[in-house]
């Protein structure tokens, strides 16, 4: 029961941290986070993941710039087509809306990875059936372990969502053709104290025996 409580607590209190203190991440923390990834389930136990640990400041800046441009580009597209207005139509505070728009369309929302002391780039073997799912399981394990160790982490897709950006990162990190870049985890001591974002109620997402038949009567 103690284990169940600890796991429930870790899952329930984990948040994505995007602001970090200027402190090194101890090696034992990095190793524990990587070990958590290594222990994830995978189809056929293929374990298609590999992890590239980035501490070098110049490399972090380069990855941050790719992420910033990827985000900024996509959000500028949403802004021009009116999608962003629809997304934030409930937001009445115009000044806050302007700040959010600026943060998104400049890509600043994703540039924070330059400030994380450590980035872990998760790559997956393409010659396996279930690479994205397997690597996602690994990543979630890693996020939970970081949180359990009182470190902050964030799953960052901004630099890897578009294949154009993924290929730039592959070239930078010399990732071979047989592997794809799945995503990046930023890791560091949190500088911010955040609450978990709202989730949809369980009642809205669970069905009994078939879709549409609510599990909760």
């Amino acid at each position, binding site marked *: 029961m103690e284990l169940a409580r600890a796991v429930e607590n870790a899952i329930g209190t984990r948040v994505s941290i995007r602001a970090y203190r200027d402190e090194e991440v101890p090696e034992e923390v990095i190793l524990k986070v990587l070990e958590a990834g290594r222990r994830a389930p995978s189809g056929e136990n293929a374990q298609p993941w590999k992890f590239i640990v980035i501490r070098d400041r110049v490399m972090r800046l380069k990855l941050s710039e790719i992420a910033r*441009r990827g985000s900024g*580009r996509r959000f*500028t*597209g949403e802004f*021009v087509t009116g999608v962003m207005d629809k997304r934030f139509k409930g937001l009445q505070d115009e000044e806050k809306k302007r700040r959010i728009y600026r943060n998104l369309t*400049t890509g600043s929302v994703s540039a924070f990875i330059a400030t994380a002391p450590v980035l872990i780039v998760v790559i997956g073997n393409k010659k396996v059936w279930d690479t994205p799912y397997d690597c996602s399981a690994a990543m979630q394990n890693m996020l939970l372990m970081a949180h359990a160790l009182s470190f902050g982490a964030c799953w960052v897709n901004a630099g890897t*969502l578009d*294949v154009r950006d993924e*290929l730039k990162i592959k070239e930078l990190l010399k990732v071979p053709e047989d592997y794809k870049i799945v995503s990046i985890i930023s890791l560091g001591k949190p500088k911010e104290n955040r609450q978990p974002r709202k989730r949809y109620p369980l009642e809205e997402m669970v069905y009994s025996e078939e879709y549409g038949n609510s599990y909760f009567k």
Partner: protein
Amino acid sequence: MDKSDKTAYFNEILADVVKSFYDERGLGARYRLTLVGVDYLRNVVCQNGNVIKDVNDIMSLISSFVKERQLAEDISWQLVDEIAQYIKAKISGCLHQEMCNKLGSSGIDVLVCPIVNMIMFLVESSLSKTCEFAETERSERHCESKVVFFSSQQ
């Protein structure tokens, strides 16, 4: 099989592939297809030593390229500088119209446009601006696409 039957076949197959991608990845699929068509352009255009100074040069080059190879009947464009800078490209009589029609009948918006990808490739490689295929409005005979610029210095 005559040429139009072959085109119909290839478009049908392409639509099936794109739909499979969409069924697997949802809206994220469009970001994995942004290089489709680029190698075809690169193998020809980059060998010709074309000099590109601005967006109009790019669009003129794409327009000639696409018409010579009968990938589309016509391309017209505007460079818009309102809330952001973007190209509004109108492509008429595109070879892939049937692919888009089939996807549209499944309720799937245009996820991939090789011609737009070619435009984006030239903008990035020649003008150091990164760009996004923001949206397409489709009709029976043409598509009007917005390619939005994001300056590297932004």
